[in-house]
């Protein structure tokens, strides 16, 4: 038996959430519509959520650019490698930190926390990465961002919530620390692992700054740098001299197509991980 107040709340809730969904989806729907529209219709402001002057030529044009695919491949490689390394490091670090009997545990947590609040700054980081010889290699992107402290803390909380008895039983049965982690703890942590994979993968997929900073050759750029140059570079002021004497402007439809192509893969992964995702974020949140 639901009270009237609760029903009113539900209606209100549904309205607000529908509003949020519309506000969130509308810009994206516009971009998708633009990607299928003619450029003339876009600049005239006729495109909302329905494509006008439907055509696929822009898709063909963007997809025939070899630089786009080179950078796309880089993004996939960087994301896969970086996510794998991040997962290994974060899992090991979090597992260690979840053991209350560990000596120096607070110090190890302190080190991680410190980096949340302080960092060396742009130029010292650049000098460091350069002097380590990481520039123009995948490691410049992977290593400095390998451990996200936020993810680390979520994972630590999750491991702490596991009953100690489980691990004790495994130890009695003859497993060492690594065996316990690999054969007992991880199989029981699929939810949090899936969540972390998603967090890392999305952040590496979307990241452009470290690649922009540390990569000096265009065949090493990820697709996000390509995309950013396409959108910001077309209107930016850095190249005024040529902007005024060349009659080229990058069409709004080319930008839209590139955005759609860049977003699609990460978007298609979401539904498959989503069920882990919800439980993964909740885990560690409610705990006695």
């Amino acid at each position, binding site marked *: 038996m639901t009270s009237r107040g609760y029903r009113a709340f539900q209606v209100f809730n549904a309205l607000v959430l529908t509003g949020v969904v519309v506000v969130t989806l509308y810009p994206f729907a516009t971009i998708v519509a633009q990607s299928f529209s003619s450029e003339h219709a876009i600049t005239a402001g006729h495109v909302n959520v329905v494509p006008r002057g439907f055509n696929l030529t822009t898709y063909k044009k963007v997809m025939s650019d070899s630089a786009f695919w080179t950078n796309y491949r880089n993004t996939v490689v960087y994301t896969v490698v970086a996510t794998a390394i991040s997962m290994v490091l974060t899992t090991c670090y979090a597992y260690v930190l979840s053991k209350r009997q560990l000596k120096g545990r607070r110090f190890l947590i302190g080190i991680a926390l410190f980096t949340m609040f302080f960092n060396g700054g742009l130029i010292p980081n650049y*000098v460091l990465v350069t002097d380590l010889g990481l520039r123009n290699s995948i490691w410049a992107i992977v290593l400095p961002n390998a451990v996200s402290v936020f993810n680390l803390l979520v994972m630590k909380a999750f491991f702490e919530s596991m009953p100690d008895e489980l691990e004790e039983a495994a130890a009695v049965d003859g497993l060492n620390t690594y065996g316990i982690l690999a054969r007992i703890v991880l199989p029981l942590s699929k939810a949090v692992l899936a969540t972390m994979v998603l967090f890392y993968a999305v952040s590496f997929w979307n990241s452009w700054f470290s690649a922009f900073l540390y990569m000096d050759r265009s065949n090493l750029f990820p697709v996000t740098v390509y995309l950013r140059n396409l959108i910001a*570079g077309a209107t930016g002021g850095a190249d005024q001299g040529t902007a005024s004497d060349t009659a080229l*402007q990058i069409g709004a439809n080319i930008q839209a197509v590139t955005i759609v192509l860049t977003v699609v893969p990460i978007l298609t992964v979401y539904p498959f991980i989503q069920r882990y995702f919800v439980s993964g974020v909740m885990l560690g949140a409610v705990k006695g």
Partner: protein
Amino acid sequence: MNQLSRRGFLSTSAGVAGLALAGCGGGGSGASSKVTSANRTGAMAKYGVGDQFKATVPLSFPIMLLSNANYPYKADWLFWSELTKRTNVTLQPTVIPGSDYNQKRSVMVSAGNAPTLIPKTYHPDEEAYIAGGAILPVSDYLDLMPNFQDKVAKWNLQGDLDQLRESDGKFYLLPGLHQDVWKDYSLAIRTDILQQLGLAVPQTWDDLTTVLRAMKKAYPDRYPFSDRWSTPPQPGANNLLALVGEAHNVWAGWSYQHAQWDASAGKFVYTGATDSYKQVIQYLNTLVSEKLLDPESFTQSDDQARQKFANGQSFVISANAQELVNHYRKDIAKISGATVVKIPVPTGPIGAAKFGSRLENGMMIANKAKDGKDFVALMQFVDWLWYSDDGLMFAKWGVQGTTYNGSVEDGTFKLAPDVTWAGVNPSGSKNLQVDYGFFNGVFAYGGSTKLLNSQFPPEELTFQNVMDGRKALPLPPPAPLNSDDREQATLWQTSLKDYVDQQTLKFILGQRPLSQWDAYVSELKAHNSEQYISLVNQAYQDFKKNHG
């Protein structure tokens, strides 16, 4: 014990301070061009104007390369292979997306990691790197650059170059050099409306008022003039303000500068307080109050202005060659019989004159390059590619017989039929920029008027010829501030700029009557306009005394 550690601390901090000072002092040394035989690897013994530079041994120079989104960097451009063939030099590019070029340049230079050649720098961006000693005072080494010197002398560019000088009398940027002041921005007018009303193309700003009045009479329901380019922080309608300002010989709109040179008094005065500036405001105020100029011109987005023009709600709008052809013509295509042209910039009280700098963005050279074995060859190479006639032609149009035919000098220049560029030869299979790497903003800018004109279609050429016929007014003398004063000046400038912009808009829109002009001028003084100007005048005097 306690005291000892405190003393230890003091001496350590003194040491740190000393190190910091030593670091700052690094840039000051090397006053004159001291090139020894140790710097001559690959250099040509005899290199002068008209000579083809070719390194005597193969050399390679690192360069920062802005990758333009319109024509992204490719390693197999004909530009690279042909450059190496002609000069024996291979450039090693650090490719930077154009979207964030300045940021990466800043990081690389500050980290001491910059490539030798750092092009596409707009004055005064280079000033940020001078104190650190990271960039070369190029003015000390001009004797290695015969073509540069030749162009400066031939085109009488000394005054323009002086604008780049710092308080030490040197400049740190090798700018692109134009033979003449190049004007592109003006107004676009619907010529079919002019014809319909029996009006001629306006020659002066007063003519424009007459034309707008006639348009208003025929179409009382709309504003005949609705303008664009109102991006903050300027007051809005920035091109219009700049153009009217130029006709009155005063900085305004997006050309606004705080210090205006008063030649008769021989000193700088504060721009926003001058009578000329008042006349500019008065003119625009008249247009607004007679409802000839859309008051939204100062606030609306470019797209809004374009849409009004496209729908026939307005007949006049700011333009450059590119906007005219790429947008306005296409926008009004749906109005039957509608035609639009870019008119020569209307003239004002100073007559058929123009002013502006003839310098383009330019190149910084890393300071460490001067100790390199191939330093002389480097300077000769830069001189050839960016300043010799052959180098300029090569960077812009490519290779004769392959990408173009004929010559710019005798007017027979023509792109090769299969090469397309900016709407020329639209059916061509190869793009001059995308596929060949020529006409690249990193390498091709500046040059003679003939070279510049070779890129224009006949219509734009007519406009250019009118503008070329106007005499260029002299630039103000240099008044470079030293770095301490610059900081103070920047603080003053920021609040002054806000205030001038705000009040300019209020006066133009009639929200503040022009009778309050004197009150406004004293308000400027409250914002330190006089202190600022005396700082500039002091810098002018100092520079004249030390380097004049």
